[in-house]
């Protein structure tokens, strides 16, 4: 039985806490957040204890696993603390704000002999799994070009930390890292990165980027990320191969739409429940992580995978800043 302490009582912390609370082979033993109110509320929802600081939780409830769902720049310090205490770690993506921090995090975990898993959850989304299986099955021959989209509006986060691009890394490090990791899981290592974006434009609550990747295998990929879309969330993938084409767009794949009249008004509201799937990708991801810990095997996202995803992000941000392509060693 793994005993899990979730650090960070925000949106992702709540999702991870709920998943652990429902898992037969894990016990949610603590929620930590310097905003003690938030920690207390989330702990109450999941019938567990709350703490202001991770050190208190480590001392009092002795978890075997620390799950870090805090703002990106704080990941490295929590990883240091957890690794030093000999705890296995699940860290929300991105692993760290910079490549040097990411490498340090992986080194510390290796030296401490603890498992480091980074929650690149897109690998567990059924549509992306199906796409990857189809691609691997060779039904469209060899992949030539891929185009992906991930567009929504900016999330505020605590103290608007997402909009502080120095903290969050903007859409590149927070959104597009999903596709960077998924594409690596399909096509291997990236050779060259070129990007355009609003990273240095400082427009409040807006970020947008278009990034081109060239893989060692010859595949080229176009990756779009946006926090400029006023409503709705759009994801899409198009894979062009030598013998066919695969295309997916979430807005064209809806199984249910429910619209309700506003009482007395003329407008309507869309009340379709989000996340209807019986098989929840977040649960699958964390069940995989806990299952690997129990079995003593390496989870599907390795520290190297997580480092490489941050490396692509950093290259994209450098390219956006300098206007030059960046070649990865």
């Amino acid at each position: 039985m793994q005993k899990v302490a979730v650090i960070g009582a925000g949106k992702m912390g709540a999702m991870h806490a709920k998943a652990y609370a429902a898992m037969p082979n894990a016990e949610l033993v603590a929620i930590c957040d310097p905003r003690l109110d938030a920690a207390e509320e989330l702990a109450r929802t999941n019938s567990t204890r709350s703490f202001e600081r991770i050190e208190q939780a480590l001392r009092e409830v002795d978890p075997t696993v620390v799950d870090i769902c805090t703002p990106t720049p704080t990941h490295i310090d929590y990883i240091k603390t957890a690794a030093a205490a000999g705890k296995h770690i699940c860290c929300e993506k991105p692993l760290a704000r910079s490549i040097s921090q990411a490498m340090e995090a992986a080194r510390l975990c290796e030296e401490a002999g603890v498992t480091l898993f980074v929650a690149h959850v897109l690998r567990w989304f059924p549509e992306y799994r199906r796409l990857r299986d189809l691609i691997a099955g060779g039904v469209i021959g060899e992949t030539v070009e891929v185009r992906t989209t991930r567009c929504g509006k900016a999330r505020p986060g605590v103290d608007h930390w997402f909009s502080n691009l120095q903290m969050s890394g903007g859409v590149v490090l927070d959104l597009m890292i999903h596709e960077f990791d998924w594409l690596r899981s399909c096509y291997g290592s990236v050779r060259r990165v070129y990007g355009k974006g609003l990273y240095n434009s400082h427009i409040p609550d807006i970020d947008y980027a278009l990034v081109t990747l060239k893989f060692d295998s010859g595949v080229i990929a176009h990756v779009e990320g946006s926090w400029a879309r006023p409503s709705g969330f759009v994801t899409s993938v198009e894979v062009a191969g030598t013998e066919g084409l695969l295309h997916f767009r979430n807005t064209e794949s809806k199984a249910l739409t429910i619209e309700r009249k506003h009482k007395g008004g003329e407008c309507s509201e869309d009340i379709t429940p989000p996340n209807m799937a019986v098989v929840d990708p977040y649960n699958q991801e964390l069940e995989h992580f806990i299952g690997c810990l129990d079995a003593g095997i390496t989870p599907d996202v390795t520290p190297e995978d997580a480092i490489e995803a941050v490396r692509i992000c950093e290259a994209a941000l450098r390219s956006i800043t300098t206007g030059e392509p960046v070649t990865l060693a």
Partner: protein
Amino acid sequence: MNPVKIGMMSFAHMHAYSYAACLKQLGDVEFVGVADEDKKRADEVGKQLGVKAFATYEDMLATDVQGVIVCSENVNHRRHVVVAAQHGKHVMCEKPLSVTNEDAEAMIEVCKRANVKLQTAFPCRFHPAFINLKKAVKAGDLGKILAIKGTNQGQCPFGWFVDTKLSGGGAVIDHTVHVTDLMRCLTGAEPVRVYAEIGNRMFGKDFDDTGLLTIDFSDGMFATLDASWSRPKSFPTWGNVKMEVTGTDGTAEMDMFNQKIDAFYDNSMSYRQEYWGDSIDLGLVRSFVESVGEDKPVQITGDDGAKALSVALAAYQSAKTGKPVDLTS
């Protein structure tokens, strides 16, 4: 809980292969084996699934198997359900429950007297889109339900499905029952009157391939249902299950198998849709296994199967006479 012992009777209906895969996937099941009047098919399936192939149904039913899944040709359902019940085994029967109302009533009666459960295989009830639609309707989000427009259009399965001596009918008996069951389940109302135009002009053979049903319900709601094998061979997927619901306070659109990837294959010069949504068969089989294992009532009864069947049979009668058929008389 001890694993629930389940066996399978006949693989005539292709859904049997999916149910078998579900039995393999569920953790709390002991898949006892398979039996089939087609002995060669039983041996092949047994080898393929790594389970015992019994020489006869009676051999399998003589074991301590607790429940069986019947997937024979429609006309054989009655005979197979009855023999299972006489051996004291719980039964899940593929839809349509039977080919006549008398058969359906007899099957329900035999199972009742033998004190065994009879579940009709209506897997669509387990799709998250329908589960959430039902939740919204129950919560009153759409107000009073006034009308439903449904379709269950598919490609012709051929084989015994088009041999009415074995199937009891063509597209109408095959495709009326799913959506009729969803309409009953969604509203709690019962069909009271059926009008239908039925044709065979898609293939021009001695089986019906198209049907347009109009159904009045006990609460005043009206519905239409396109129960057809009207999708051409070049259609990108097997077919669809759709409902458009109109209520006093809102509307809902369900397109159960719309969670798909568009796929263009040069090898076959075809466009296909690759489904990635939740498996509905897993929910159905799990529900049956749990009912048997925990000795609780089945979620979908024999009566549910009989009610849906009666609509299909009334449709045939209506098409023959050109007049609506009263179900209550």
